[in-house]
């Protein structure tokens, strides 16, 4: 009972005083849910404020390293940041390597402990967005052009490295006949340009696509529908 009461007392005291006089404990400052969130290899470290920081804004300090390195490195852009995220895309760009990030909070000269992410391997964990899709009608066919999301950085020689360098990506294209409300898979493969016939005149066709990574059996979400009217 005692510790519970003490904690409650501390909580009340903390909220009554305006943060200055009472030092919050290390434990209550600790950032919560420190995780990498990765989309298309944009690797963002995210966290939530410590349990007692709901109304108070502390600042945060971020470090990172590759698994196996003895030294943590400071992330300058996130060294004393009020934000609840930190972009570590460039620091985690060796996509098949495992990384760690960690965060500590500082409020009124009190430091929390460091809170570390789980081990993070971009290649395995990143979510791939749906492909960009353009659809044009050519006579009685639809010409579908697909484009995988770009990687966030350029290769060593300055050229644009593509997502395909890291996975054997497969595009899946679906055709929806709006008048009958029927959906049909019309293509699965690595080609970026796909032609599909439309046979019914005076109807509306829509196309959606997704990216599939066979090696991980993971699919992206679907792209937005792109529709074409057949005269």
């Amino acid at each position: 009972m005692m510790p519970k009461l003490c904690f409650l007392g501390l909580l009340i005291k903390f909220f009554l005083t305006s943060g200055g006089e009472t030092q919050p404990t290390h434990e209550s400052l600790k950032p919560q849910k420190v995780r990498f969130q990765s989309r298309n290899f944009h690797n963002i470290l995210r966290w939530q404020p410590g349990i007692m920081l709901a109304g108070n804004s502390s600042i945060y300090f971020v470090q990172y390293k590759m698994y196996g390195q003895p030294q943590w490195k400071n992330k300058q852009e996130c060294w004393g940041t009020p934000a609840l995220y930190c972009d570590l895309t460039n620091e985690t760009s060796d996509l098949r390597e495992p990384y760690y990030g960690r965060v500590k909070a500082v409020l009124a000269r009190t430091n929390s402990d460091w809170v570390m992410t789980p081990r993070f391997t971009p290649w395995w964990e990143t979510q791939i967005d749906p492909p960009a899709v353009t659809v044009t009608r050519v006579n009685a066919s639809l010409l579908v052009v697909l484009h995988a999301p770009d990687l966030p950085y350029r290769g060593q020689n300055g050229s644009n490295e593509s997502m395909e360098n890291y996975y054997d990506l497969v595009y899946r294209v679906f055709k929806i006949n709006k008048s009958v409300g029927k959906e049909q898979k019309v293509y699965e493969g690595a080609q970026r340009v796909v032609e599909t016939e439309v046979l019914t005149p005076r109807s509306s066709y829509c196309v959606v696509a997704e990216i599939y990574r066979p090696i991980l059996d993971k699919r992206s979400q679907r792209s937005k529908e792109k529709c074409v009217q057949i005269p």
Partner: protein
Amino acid sequence: MAPLQKPGSFPLLGALATGCLLLIGLWTQEGSALPITSHCKLDRSNFQQPYITNRTFMLAQEASLADNNTDVRLIGGKLFEGVKVKEHCYLMKQVLNFTLEEVLLPQSDRFQPYMQEVVSFLTKLSSKLSLCRIEGDDQHIQKNVQELKDTVKKLGESGEIKVIGEMDLLFMSLGNTCI
């Protein structure tokens, strides 16, 4: 078995022909010397099965949560120091066998159900590499492998957890070096 023994059957001829071509190829490539490595090769298809790839990564992820020692890494650059690229697969074979015999089997009741599936997959790879040898001295390789073993032993229980937490690295390294 029967078709293989029938003389003159096409598969046999084909196999003989490829065999000869392969030998000629190897002999001409290496001059009069024998190839340095033999059978140190795994088929790419071993590493293109999403189910076991995912299971391996999940096992590693779960075990790595229990590994707070972020400074020490077993499968990384240091393991390959001083070892020629064409000997890397042989090196990984040694690491694989150590992992199976001295870590995964003793720990096999943990991290289920992933462990069981990954162990049986790796056991298959290990048997596929059973004939993998290098010609000549492998002392420099054994030295690196021994260092890894010593690190694991020194860390004790948490060393074994670390090995399991690096199953994804073992998997990818086998793929990179043996395909």
